[in-house]
C-alpha cells in the first residue's frame, strides 16, 4: 500500500531535529525539514553540518529515533517499525561516537587480570599533582603469574615487580591500581594487599619496591580501589569482607598474626622472603556479605562513602567513617563488577556487572523510586570489568568473559521487552571491541581463551587485559568529537 510511495524516487520524510546539547541548538524555524526517505546517518549529519543549518563544519552526529540509534536509512527504519512515510519523525541528534579502533597489544607471559593507567586525565595523574610530567604516561598490568608490569605508552616494559621469593605476590595478582606516579597497590589470590614504591631512573627503566604488606582477608582479594588523595585502599575479597586500608605504615594497625605466612610452623611449603616489607592490618574489615564480595568502589564525590557488590546479589552502601552498612539493595543476580558513574546532580549511578550477562544500573539513593534504573544487555558471558568514560557521564565500557569489551551509551534507551522481564528500560551496546588476537579465527564457545578480566577507559585509550595474555589498546580519545 505504502510501498510504491516509498519506492518512488523523491519520497520525502518530514523530520524534526531536537537535541539536548546547549551549544548545538538549531533555530526554531530550521528544526522541521523534509529529507529524502533513503537518507542515512551520514547524510543527516551532513545536512545538520551544512551552512544553512548549524554551520559547524564536520561534527559527526548520531541520531536517536525513539530511544535507539538510527543505523539504517530512514525508509528502512519506517518500514521495519511499520510506520507510514508521512509520519513526522523526531530525530534527536548527539555527537557521534567514533569507533574505538585497535591500536596495539602488549604481550604477557600469563593471563592479564587487571590494567590501570597513569595519565594526565586519570585519577592517579590528578592525585600526582605537579610531579606528573607530560610524557610520563604509564600502564600497569597485573598478571596471573603473580607479577606486576609497568609499560610506557609505546608498549615497552619499564619494570616488573619482584617475584614471590623477593617480596612480591606469592600467587596470582587479581587487581592493581596506581595511587600516584610513585606509588601503586596490588592485591591477589595470596590474600594480601601490597603497596609498592615506584621510582623511575629514566624514561625506560624503573624500580618497584614493596613497602607494605597488608593482611586481613581470609580469601582471594578480587578487587582493589584506591584513593590517592587520602591514601586509602578499598578491597573486596572472596571471604565476603570489604577491607579499608591505609597505605602509610604509621597509620595502619598491626596485622593479625594468625594470617601472616609462617604462622603455623607445620606448613611445609613456606615462602622465605629475602626482602621484608612492613606487615600491617586493615583500618577496618567489614564482614558484610554472605557470599564472595566481588568489587567495592568509593563514591566519586565523597570518599567516606563506598559501595560494594557481591555474589550474594546485593549492592551495599558503606559509611567508611563508622564502618557500617547504610543501605542494602538486592538485585536478582550475583554481581561481579562495579563502577560508579558520577552524575552532575548528586549521587553517582552505579553500574554493576552480573553473572547473568548484563549490567544493571543502580541508583543508590535511598529516595530513588526504583533501584534498578536500566539494564544494559548484549554480553554473552559474565561481566567482570567496568570503567566509566573519562570524558562524559553517559558512557561506559564493560569487559566480559565472552571475550569482548562493549561501549554503552546510556542515552540510548528502549523499554524492555517481555522476554527481558518487561520492567524498566534496556540499552544495547554502541560498539563491540573484539579481542585482536581472536580476529579472523572461529568464534569460540563461552569466550574460551579470550576472556577479558579487566578494562579501563582513559584519555589514552581503552585498555583491556584478558586470557589471551595481552593488554589490548583501543583508541578511546576521540570517541566523542569535541
Amino acid at each position, binding site marked *: 500500500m505504502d510501498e510504491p510511495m516509498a519506492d518512488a524516487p523523491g519520497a520525502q520524510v518530514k523530520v524534526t531535529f531536537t537535541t539536548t546539547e546547549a551549544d548545538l541548538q538549531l533555530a526554531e524555524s530550521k528544526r522541521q525539514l523534509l529529507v529524502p526517505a533513503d537518507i542515512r546517518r551520514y547524510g543527516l549529519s551532513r545536512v545538520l553540518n551544512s551552512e544553512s543549518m548549524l554551520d559547524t563544519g564536520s561534527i559527526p552526529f548520531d541520531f536517536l529515533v525513539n530511544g535507539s540509534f538510527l543505523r539504517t536509512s530512514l525508509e528502512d527504519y519506517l518500514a521495519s517499525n511499520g510506520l507510514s512515510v508521512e509520519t513526522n519523525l523526531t530525530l534527536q541528534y548527539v555527537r557521534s561516537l567514533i569507533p574505538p579502533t585497535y591500536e596495539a597489544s602488549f604481550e604477557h607471559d600469563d593471563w592479564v587480570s587487571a590494567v590501570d593507567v597513569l595519565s594526565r586525565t586519570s585519577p592517579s595523574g590528578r592525585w600526582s599533582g605537579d610531579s606528573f610530567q607530560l610524557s610520563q604516561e604509564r600502564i600497569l598490568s597485573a598478571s596471573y603469574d603473580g607479577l606486576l608490569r609497568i609499560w610506557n605508552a609505546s608498549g615497552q616494559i619499564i619494570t616488573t615487580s619482584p617475584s614471590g621469593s623477593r617480596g612480591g605476590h606469592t600467587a596470582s595478582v587479581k587487581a592493581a591500581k596506581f595511587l600516584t606516579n610513585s606509588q601503586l597497590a596490588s592485591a591477589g589470590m595470596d590474600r594480601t594487599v601490597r603497596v609498592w614504591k615506584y621510582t623511575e631512573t629514566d624514561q625506560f627503566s624503573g624500580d618497584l619496591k614493596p613497602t607494605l604488606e597488608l593482611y586481613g582477608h581470609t580469601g582471594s582479594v578480587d578487587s582493589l580501589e584506591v584513593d590517592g588523595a587520602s591514601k586509602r585502599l578499598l578491597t573486596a575479597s572472596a571471604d565476603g569482607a570489604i577491607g579499608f586500608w591505609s597505605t602509610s605504615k604509621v597509620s595502619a594497625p598491626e596485622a593479625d598474626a*594468625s*594470617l601472616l605466612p609462617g604462622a603455623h610452623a607445620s*606448613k611445609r611449603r613456606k615462602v622465605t622472603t629475602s626482602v621484608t616489607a612492613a606487615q600491617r592490618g586493615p583500618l577496618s574489615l567489614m564482614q558484610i556479605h554472605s557470599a564472595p564480595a566481588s568489587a567495592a568502589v568509593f563514591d566519586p564525590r565523597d570518599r567516606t562513602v563506598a559501595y560494594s557488590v557481591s555474589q550474594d546479589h546485593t549492592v551495599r552502601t558503606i559509611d567508611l567513617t563508622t564502618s557500617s552498612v547504610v543501605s542494602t539493595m538486592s538485585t536478582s543476580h550475583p554481581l561481579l563488577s562495579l563502577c560508579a558513574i558520577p552524575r552532575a546532580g548528586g549521587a553517582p549511578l552505579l553500574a554493576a556487572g552480573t553473572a547473568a550477562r548484563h549490567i544493571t544500573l543502580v541508583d543508590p539513593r535511598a529516595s530513588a523510586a526504583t533501584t534498578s534504573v536500566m539494564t544494559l544487555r548484549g554480553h554473552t558471558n559474565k561481566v*567482570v570489568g567496568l570503567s566509566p568514560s573519562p570524558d562524559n557521564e553517559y558512557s561506559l565500557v564493560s569487559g566480559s*568473559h565472552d571475550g569482548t569489551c562493549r561501549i554503552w551509551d546510556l542515552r540510548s534507551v528502549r523499554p524492555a521487552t517481555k522476554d527481558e522481564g518487561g520492567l524498566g528500560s534496556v540499552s544495547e551496546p554502541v560498539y563491540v571491541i573484539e579481542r585482536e588476537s581472536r580476529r579472523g579465527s572461529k568464534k569460540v564457545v563461552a569466550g574460551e581463551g579470550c576472556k577479558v*578480566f579487566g578494562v579501563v577507559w582513559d584519555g589514552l585509550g581503552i585498555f583491556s587485559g584478558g586470557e589471551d595474555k595481552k593488554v589490548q589498546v583501543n583508541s578511546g580519545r576521540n570517541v566523542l568529537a569535541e
Partner: protein
Amino acid sequence: MAPKITDKKRKAREPESESDDELANGLFDGVLSQSEDEEDYLPSDDDDVDESGSEGSDGSEDEEGEEEDEDDLLSDDIPSDVDGEEEVSKLIRKQGQLKITEPGVDPKPRDDDGEEKNYRVERDANGGERYVYDEIDPVYDSDDSDAQGPVNTIGNIPLSFYDSYPHIGYDINGKKIMRPATGDALQSLLDSIEVPKGWTGLTDVNTGNPLNLTQEELELVRRVQMGLLPNEIEDPYPDTIEYFTSIEEKMPLSSAPEPKRRFLPSKNEAKQVMKLVRAIREGRILPYKPPAEREREEEEQEEVHFDLWQNEEPQAPNPLHIPAPKLPPPGYDLSYNPPEEYLPSKEEREEWENADPEDREKQYLPQKYNALRKVPAWGTLVNERFERCMDLYLAPRVRKNRLNIDPNSLLPKLPSPSELKPFPTVVQTVFRGHEGRVRSVAIDPTGIALATGGDDGTVRVWELLTGRQVWSVKLNSEEPVNAVRWRPAKDSFILAAATGEDVFLMVPAHASVTPALDQTSRDILAVGFGYATNGQQQALPAGKEPPAKWARPGTKLEDEGVLIRITVRSTVKVINWHRRGDHFATVSPTGQRSSVAIHTLSKHLTQIPFRKLSGLAQTAAFHPLRPLFFVATQRTIRCYDLQKLELVKVVQPGAKWISSFDIHPGGDNLIVGSYDKRLLWHDLDLSNRPYKTMRFHGEAIRQVRFHKGGLPLFADASDDGSLQIFHGRVPNDQLENPTIVPVKILKGHKVVSKLGVLDIDWHPKEPWCVSAGADGTARLWM
C-alpha cells in the same frame, strides 16, 4: 583471631557431635545384613548339584559292581597257558558245581544261566524250599509287551468269582492284587457328575478300576462302530492321477528350430506403423486432443446427471422397482402462515443461525406471511433436491464427528520454563587441562573452588568463575581418579579423591587458604592417627585382614597437601560424605561383600556394614537429615536406619541397572538415574514405585543431582553428551504432588567413544552447575 573462631566453631559443634550416637556410635561393621528381603536372591543350584552328585556316585558304584562281574566272567573265559585237558576238566568241574538240567547245551549259555541267578531260595512256612523269582525287568528289546503294571493272572474267569474276597486275583509273583477301594455312593455320584476326561462309566474287567479311555481309543471305538477303517490312514482307494494322458504339457518338448518369424521384424507391422507415423506427421491423426477440447469433454463427462424418475409411470408394486420416495406431508410449521406457537423465538432463531447446518434439527425456520402472495421462493430448493438425490444414490457422505475439545486442555497444566527462572542456560566457563576424560567434579562448600578428577590420574582445583587452574596433584599414573568430593563443612578445606583401590584425603594448597584454615583442616585429618596409636581401635580377630589401611601417602604427596591414603580391597568408584563431615561412604562395585564401606575420619576407622549384600552395590549415600543410609544395587535401593540397624525401606525404581541416585535435601524424595536411559522420581512416603518416569535421553544416564542450596532444581547427565535441567518443586503440603518440569537441555559436551557427560555438581547457592565430560573438559553452566 582465626583459631578462636575455630575453637568456637568446634564448641558449637560439640552438642551436634553428641548426637552422633544416631549413627550407632559409628560402629557399622556387619550390622546391616540382608536377611530381611530375599527378593533379589536367586536360589543357588547347590541342592540340585548335590542330588546330581549323589546320583552320579550311585551310578558309578553300580558300574563298579558290573565291572567286577565282568572280570569274573573274563577270568573264567580266558584260558591261560594250560593245556586242553586241564581246560576241559576245569569246565567239567565248574559244570558240576552249577546245576545243569539240560545236557547237550553248549557250556557258554549254561555259564550265563549260572550267573543270572534271577531267583532267591527262601524257606516257606512248612520249612520247604521256595524259589522266589526276581521281577523281570522288561528291557526295551524284550518282546514282552504286557509288562506294564501288575497284571491279573486269574485267567479267563469272571471277576464275580472274587466278589466275596478282599482281593481280585494274583499278579505274576503270586501276590494278591487287592480290590481297588470303591468310594461310597456319593463319591461315585460326584465322580460321575464331574466327568473326568476319557470317562466311560465302565469298569475294567481285570482290575475293577473305572475304565478310562484315551481320546485315541475313543476315536478308534467310534470308527469301528461307524464301520470305517480302525486307523485313520489315507484313503486306500485314491483316484488315479493320469500323469501321462490328461495333463497338458506347458513346456514344448519339440526340438524343432525356432521359426524365423520369431526373430525377424515383421514387414507388415513396420508398414502399419509407418502408415500411422505418416498420418501423424500429416496431421490426419492427432495424438492428443487440444487441451481446451479435452477439458470440455471431461466436464461434459462429469456433468452427466439425469432424473431417475423422469419418465416414471405408475406401476404395480414390484420388488425390482424403486418408486420415487414420498416426501413427508407438510406440517403447520411449513405453512406460510403458521400459528404463533410454531414461530421461533428470538433465542431459538439465534441458536439456529449459530449452529452448523449439519447440527440443525430442521433445515428451515417457520416464517409467517400475511398473504400467500408475499411468500418468496424457497431459497434452498436446489440444495435440498441435490441432497435428496444423493440420498437416493446412496452416496456416502461422511459426517464429521467434531470433537469440541481444545487439545491444549488435555495437556497437564505445567508452568512455562520462563516462569521458573533462574536455571542454567549456557556454558560460561570451560575448564580445559585434563588429558583424557574428566570423571568427577565437585564444587567446594563456599562455591569458590572447583575440584575435578580425570583419567590422567590427576586431581585439579580450579577457580570456578575464571576457569584458572590453581592446584593439581598426580595421584596415580595408571588408573583414573574416579571420584572427588569435598568435605561438606565450611570450617575445613578437605577433598577426598578415589583412584584405584585408594582413597586420598587432601588439603589442596590453594593460595587463598589461610594458614588457620589450612591448619584446622590438617588437624581434622591428623586426629585419627592419635586415635589409632592409642589403641582405641577395635581389636580385629587374629588373622583377619582389616577392611582398609589408613596411612600417610609419602612425603612427595604430602608436600602437595595429600595427607591420608586409605587402601581398601577393590576399586572405589563412589565417595559420599555424611553431612557432618566425619563419616564418608565409599562404594566399590567389584568388591563382593566389602563393596560398601563407611569410613570414620576422626578415628581412622573403616567398617563394612554389610556381611552379605544381594546384588552388586552401585552407589550409596547418607540421608541429608536423618540417620538413614541408602545403598543402591543394580535394581533396588535399600534404606537402612543406622540407629536401629535395620532395613527401613526398599525402593524399586523398575530400572534395569541403576547408575546413580540423589536424595532431595528435604529428605522425602529421591531421583534415580539408570543406564537404561531413565530418570525416575520417587516419593519415599508415597510408594516404593516411581512417582514419575522420564525417558528423555537417548543414551544412558550417568549421574543425577539435586540442587542443595534451596533452589528447586535437579539435573541429570547422560552419555548422549547433554545435561537436562529440571524444575522439581516439592510442596510443603503433604497432600500435594511434586511439580516436575523439564526446563533446559544443555548441549556442548562432545561424545567420545560413546561416553558423554560423566558427572555433575551444583553450586551450593546459585543456579549454576558444573559438568564433567568425556571430551576432557569440565564446563560451568549458568
